[in-house]
Structure formats: C-alpha cells, structure tokens
C-alpha cells in the first residue's frame, strides 16, 4: 500500500522523537513508527498502517522480529539479501502478499520505505544542508 509522503513524514517525526529520547513506543500506539538507520540511513516502518490492514502483533513478532527496538539492525542480517530469503520484511514483501522488497524486482518503489539521510534529518529536526548558493 502506498502511503502519502506527508503522512510518512509526520509518522517518521513521531518515531524519531521516541528514538532520540530513548523511550520505547507505547503499547497503545502499537509500536509507533520506527526509523531504521542500519545498514543504511534511513528506513521508515509504520506500525499503525500495518495494524490497519488487520495484522496482529504476533503476525510479525513471532519469530520474524523481536519486540525490542534495534534487535533487527543488530542481527547483521537486516538487508535485502535476507529479505529475498523470506526473512524480516521479506516474509510479506515478496511481491505476492505485499509489494516486493527483493532488490532486483523492486524498481521504482525504493523510496516508499527509504527516507534517506534527508528524511532522517527532518525527522530528528536537523536542517538539511542546501546545495551551493541556495
């Protein structure tokens, strides 16, 4: 499902605020929005929009992802190669359940999740550096 840019941004802001303050997302918000910064900056994941599609906590948090923030990133396996083998996001984002996260087939959809350094800077309130002369 395509999310609007603005919604993603607002959610990214909320998510980043939690990350910055080191406060885990509350249960009421179903985990809030997560901004992953490893192995690349930065990828956004919005819990709410996934809950809205009818998924339960244990759809993903029963083997695919641990509850603790950062555990996927620390695994060293949180990447597209691993997704292609059905791990992490790749369990659903395989081109049939949801849009594919397999690198060779994901043409044009990268920025649905990838918000980049600029997205991360905005989410953390840091001003993005402008090009020369602007």
């Amino acid at each position, binding site marked *: 499902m*395509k999310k609007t840019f603005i919604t993603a941004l607002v959610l990214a802001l909320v998510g980043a605020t939690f990350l910055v303050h080191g406060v885990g997302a509350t249960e009421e918000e179903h985990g809030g929005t997560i901004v992953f910064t490893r192995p690349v900056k*930065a990828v956004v994941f919005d819990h709410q929009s996934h809950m809205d599609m009818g998924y339960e906590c244990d759809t993903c948090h029963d083997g695919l992802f641990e509850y603790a923030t950062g555990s996927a990133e620390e695994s060293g396996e949180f990447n597209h190669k691993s997704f292609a083998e059905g791990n992490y996001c790749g369990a659903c984002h395989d081109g049939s359940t949801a849009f594919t996260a397999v690198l060779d087939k994901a043409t044009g959809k990268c*920025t649905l999740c990838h918000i*980049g350094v600029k997205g991360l800077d905005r989410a953390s309130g840091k001003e993005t550096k402008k090009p*020369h*002369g602007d």
Partner: protein
Amino acid sequence: MKIEDLERFEKMESEGLETLPSEERRRFLQMGLAVTGVFAGGTVLSLMSARPVNGALEGISLKDYPYKPHYCMVLRQDRCIDCELCKEACVKTNHVPEYGYRTTILERELTVGPASRQREFMPVLCNQCNRPPCVRVCPTVATYKDKTTGIVMMDPKKCIGCKTCMAACPYNARYFNEEIRAIDKCDFCFASRLSKGMTTTACAEACPADVRIFGDLSDPTSRVYQLVHDPERVVWVLRPETGAAPNVFYTKG
C-alpha cells in the same frame, strides 16, 4: 573622425554599391560572415565557434567519443535511497570540507496519484561536459578539459578564486575551498584513485544500490556504453538546453 570630415563626406555623392570594386565588396561580406560566426558553423548571433550538431538528441550526442578512455557516469536514478554513503566516501577520499561538496543528492516529490506523493532522490556531480562552460570562462586556464580522459580538471595553483566558473556551471558542481584558496570540484576521483590505477570512483564503489555506474563510454563492452546505447532504455541528461554536452547520464531501472 573629425567633424569637418563628416561635413565633407555629407557633401559627397554616394558611390553606390554598383561602383564598388567586387574585391572590396567580397572582403566586406567576408568580415561580416566571420563576425556572425557563419564560417564557424554557429548561429547568426554567436560570436564563438559552435560545432556542427551531429544528431544530438536532447543534449546527447552518441556519435563521437573524443577521449580515450571517455569517462562517464550513468545514474540509475530511481534506485537512489539517499543513504549518502557516496557522499561519505567522496568526502573521505577527496578531503571535501563540510561547507562544500563534489557530489550531493537532491530530493523532490512526485505526485503519483490524487492524494499520493512519492519521494525521488537525484544524485548530482560535475557532468564533465564536452563543451564545458566553466572552462570557457576561466581567465587563467586553471580549469581545463583533460585531453586524454575528458575530465574537467582544476589546477589550484593557477586559480585566482574569481568564481566565474561557479557562476558559469549549469550544474552547481563547484565550490570555493577555503583551505586551498581555490575552486574545487569532482574530477571523477582522477587525482585520488584513477591516476593510481583504480578503475572506479569512490562514490560508485560505495553505492550499495548500484545507482552510480562509472566507465568508459568509448568502450562498447563497458556497462556504461551498453546502458546508454540500449534502444529500450530512456536516457537523459540534465539541462540539455545549455549545449554543454554532459557526460553524466540519467536513467531509471
């Protein structure tokens, strides 16, 4: 000319063109054609020479590769995720200060539906133009087109810091480096890598998404050649209207 002379000429009868010797008439016409650039293949108003347009399509000419190797870069734009590992690699490799850049990533939003927008990132760098406007305006020949590789290079010792090249560059690809008191720009990592035997730029090597593809456009076996010449593929350059004939190509997929 003195005023008396003018008064004297006014009283004279016009010679008329028919009385002018043909030799003299021809010389006069030749002078006019030279000034308007017709002899140089330019348009009527251009004072500088312009090369004949050889099948150039939207700023891309795929006929001649004047350099060997003819270095170029193809950017598969829709794969860019703005992770900026390319920028980090460039900064580290070429000692780029915090206030400048040799390459950067631009961002824009595309409307893809009534209430749906999508981010798009666009890597930019020096386009190493075949007809570089920066080189044309440099008063001290501090920036020049390398005769072998076609890379637009800088000789910082000759640079007087007038920044005319910065103003002339259609791609905003130059900055003034305070430390060396000279303009600095991307040289496809020539000084830092290519001249030492490495075959690719730091940014291309660092890219995890295979966005930046660097190579020799005059080599039909190279990946850049095959991407740019693929008839199924849409390839474009930035700001083709400037006529700079850039060597940085953009494509999707």
